[in-house]
C-alpha cells in the first residue's frame, strides 16, 4: 500500500498531523491497529483483507484526543463510523484527516467530512454474507427455537466487554453497566445478566450501528452479538428509513420521532 505509506509520511513530516492511526503486521500473520507518530515508521502501515478492526473506536480515547490533529486509515466501516461520530459531535474535520481506502484497496483522499459522506452514498455496501445468512436462519426459527439459540449463545458470554471495547459507538465515559447507583445491569455473567447486557447494548446502538461486525470479531468466544444490532438496523431502516453512517445531519433515531411512524400492535 505504497500510496498510503507515502501520504502518511508526508502528513507526519509536514506536521499536518501528529499521529496516523492505521494497521500493521501483528503476531502469526494477523493485522492489528497501529499508531504511527514518527514519519520513518510510516513504512509499517499495511492494508489488506485482514484489516477489519474499526479504528474509529480510538477517536474517542483521551490519548488520541490529546494528540491534536490526526489522520485515520479508513476503509468503508471506519468512514461510516466517522460520519456517525461527526453527527454526534464527537469528532470535527479540523482535527481529523480521513485517509479513505476503497473496496479495491486504493487510497481515497477527502477534503472534508462532506466528501466522505458523498463517497459513502455513492458506494453502498451490503452486510457481510455470513451475517446475513445467520440473520435469515434465525428469522426463520419459531420463538422457542430463537429463545434456545440465544440462550445457548449468550450463556457462554463471560462479560469481558470486548464487544463494547471494539465498538466505535460505545464511547460513553461511564457505561450504563458501570453505574452502580442503581446497578441496572447485572455484573456477574449469569444468563440473565448476559441477556440484559446484550439487549441493552443493542438498543443503545439502534440507529447508530453501522454493522462493521467487530463486536463479534473481537469476542474471544465468537458469539454472534452483531446479529442483534444487525436485526435492529434492518428494522430501523424499514420503519424509519434510517441508515446509520450515511448522513452528517442525521439525528439519533431514538430521540426523534415522526407522528406518522406506523405500527400495528398498539391497541
Amino acid at each position: 500500500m505504497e500510496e498510503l505509506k507515502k501520504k502518511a509520511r508526508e502528513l507526519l513530516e509536514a506536521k499536518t498531523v501528529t499521529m496516523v492511526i492505521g494497521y500493521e503486521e501483528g503476531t502469526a500473520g494477523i493485522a492489528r491497529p497501529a499508531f504511527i507518530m514518527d514519519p520513518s515508521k510510516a513504512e509499517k502501515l499495511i492494508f489488506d483483507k485482514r484489516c477489519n478492526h474499526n479504528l474509529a473506536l480510538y477517536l474517542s480515547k483521551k490519548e488520541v484526543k490529546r494528540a491534536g490533529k490526526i489522520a485515520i486509515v479508513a476503509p468503508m466501516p471506519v468512514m461510516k463510523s466517522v460520519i456517525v461520530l461527526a453527527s454526534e459531535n464527537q469528532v470535527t474535520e479540523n482535527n481529523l484527516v480521513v485517509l479513505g481506502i476503497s473496496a479495491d484497496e486504493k487510497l481515497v483522499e477527502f477534503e472534508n467530512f462532506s466528501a466522505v459522506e458523498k463517497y459513502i452514498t455513492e458506494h453502498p455496501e451490503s452486510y457481510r454474507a455470513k451475517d446475513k445468512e445467520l440473520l435469515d436462519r434465525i428469522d426463520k426459527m419459531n420463538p422457542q427455537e430463537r429463545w434456545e439459540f440465544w440462550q445457548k449463545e449468550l450463556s457462554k458470554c463471560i462479560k469481558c466487554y470486548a464487544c463494547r471495547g471494539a465498538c466505535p459507538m460505545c464511547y460513553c465515559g461511564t457505561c450504563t453497566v458501570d453505574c452502580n447507583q442503581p446497578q441496572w445491569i447485572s455484573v456477574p455473567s449469569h444468563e440473565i445478566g448476559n441477556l440484559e447486557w446484550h439487549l441493552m447494548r443493542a438498543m443503545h446502538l439502534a440507529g447508530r450501528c453501522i454493522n462493521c461486525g467487530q463486536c463479534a470479531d473481537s469476542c474471544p468466544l465468537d458469539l454472534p452479538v452483531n446479529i442483534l444490532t444487525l436485526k435492529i438496523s434492518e428494522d430501523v431502516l424499514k420503519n424509519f428509513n434510517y441508515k446509520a453512517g450515511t448522513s452528517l445531519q442525521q439525528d439519533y433515531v431514538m430521540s426523534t420521532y415522526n407522528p406518522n411512524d406506523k405500527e400495528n400492535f398498539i391497541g
Partner: protein
Amino acid sequence: MSNNEEITTKTDVKVVAFVCNWCTYAGADLTGTSRIKYASNVRIIRFPCTGRIDFMLLMKAFAKGADGIIVSGCHPNDCHYTSGNYHAKRRWMVFRTLLDFVGIDIARINFTWVSAAEGAKWAEVVNSTVENIKKLGPYTNYKALAKMMESGSLKIEAGN
C-alpha cells in the same frame, strides 16, 4: 424460598402495568369510580408519561416474576407533554422487534392507548390481557433465568 415462586400457579398469573399518569392512570381511576369490575392480577405502576418508560423496565418486570405486561398511555396527539408518547412508540417498535428476535414472548406484552375518559376500555384491556396470560401460563422460561438472581450461582461448568 421466594414469595414469587409460591404464588404463581396457573390461575394466579401476575401482570404488571406501566401506565402514564395523565391518561391511563386517570382512566383506570374512572374504571374504579364507575364500579366496573376487572381482574385483580394487575399491578399498576404510575409514570408521568410513557416516554419515561425505559425498555429495560419491561425486562426487569419479567425478571421479578411478571407473567405479562401492559404498557399504556395517551393517544397520539394527546400527550400531556406533547410528544412523549411518540418517542415511546418508536422505542417500543424497535424493542419489540428485538425481543421477538431473541425469542422473548411478545404476546405477553400488551401496548395500548387508553385515555382518561376510557374507563371501560381499561377494564377491557386488563381483563383480556389477564385472560390471555392465563392461557399462556406463567412465564417459566424467563423465571428460570431470574432464579439466578436469587440463588447467585449455578453448577460450575468449565468454560463457564
